[in-house]
């Protein structure tokens, strides 16, 4: 009973090699099909097109006065947009007192507009704007007007999301130009 079975699978007999080759190739082709069939299932878990549409947020900058801050939602997270005054820009011109030194010029595309993610790099709370910079009331972290960390426990500066100026008064958050 089991003899017939093992002979069928054997590669040692006469044209067993040809048999084996056909079975091997068929198995590979079949396996490729099964793998390909998994793709739609896995892909369906990726963000759908309506979610991806929210991946970019358009912000109209008119109406934010000098010194003013606007918070907008981008991919479900808050983004702080600050129309900085010359004093604010001056206050962040050095990297002294910052725990994660990074020149302000590297963090902005135009000095009078700061665009940073309003998510504290410690545990993810949303910091409050207080005077010059922000304070996070969860554990006391402080950031300056460039969004750089000046007092811990947060380790890193506020993240700068990708954005570009579609016009002088309009930015698109979500991708670089």
């Amino acid at each position, binding site marked *: 009973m089991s003899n*017939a079975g093992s*002979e*069928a699978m054997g590669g040692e007999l006469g044209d067993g090699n040809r*048999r084996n080759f*056909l*079975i091997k*190739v*068929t198995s590979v*082709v*079949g396996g490729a*099909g099964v793998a390909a069939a998994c793709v739609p299932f896995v892909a369906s878990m990726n963000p759908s*097109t*309506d979610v991806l*549409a*929210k991946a970019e947020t*358009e912000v109209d900058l008119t109406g934010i006065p000098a010194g003013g801050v606007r918070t907008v939602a981008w991919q479900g997270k808050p983004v702080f947009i600050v129309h900085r005054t010359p004093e604010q820009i001056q206050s962040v011109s050095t990297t002294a007192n910052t725990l994660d030194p990074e020149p302000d010029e590297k963090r902005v595309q135009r000095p009078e507009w700061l665009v940073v993610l309003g998510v504290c790099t410690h545990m993810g709370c949303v910091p409050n704007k207080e005077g010059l910079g922000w304070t996070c009331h969860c554990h006391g972290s402080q950031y300056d007007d460039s969004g750089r960390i000046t007092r811990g426990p947060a380790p890193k500066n506020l993240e700068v999301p990708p954005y570009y100026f579609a016009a002088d008064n309009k930015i698109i958050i979500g991708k670089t130009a």
Partner: protein
Amino acid sequence: MKTLIKILLLCSISLGAWANEEAALDKVILETDVKSVERGADAMIGACHACHSMKYVHYRDLLTYGMDKQKVDGWRGDQPLDSAVMAQMSESDAAASFGKAPPDLSLMVKAREGGANYLYSYLLGYYMTKEGVPGNHYYPETKMPDVLNVSSIAEGASHSEVQAQARDIVSFLAWVADPHEQERLRLGYYVMAYLLVLTVMLYFVKKQVWSNLK
């Protein structure tokens, strides 16, 4: 046994003849290329969407499909790309003017027996009744006005312009009802080819495996 099969076949053929007694539909050959569908979208958004919404289509879908960005921006005005194509008239106003809320058109091609052929025939099916108001051969109770002005075409004059307009509109609506159709057919051809090859191989594997049996 053979006679039984013959009887069954005869029954099924005669069934077909018995079933359909409604007005025969005009057949339409749909356009599936972007340009034609875009013309249909123009007509829809220019005229139809005054009353009809297409709430499952968003302006960004029109862009992804390949329609001209300036056209899409013109259609949406200051509504964000993400918004659905809603009717200009509110549903209650439309119901008040026509007696019935105009239905959403997102799935209309699928929601009617006869699909695209039915919609095409319906749009062209207006005629001038004795009372001097337009009626429709395919849906006599309709409250929708004769948007293509079919009923006022003179006897013997050419219908080709309204037919082209109706074809564009229905082509667009067919895309709206099934935006992934082209992708589905393309994937289908690949899947069929693959399965045919694999099944032939599996056939030979089966034959070889069984050839061992004494």
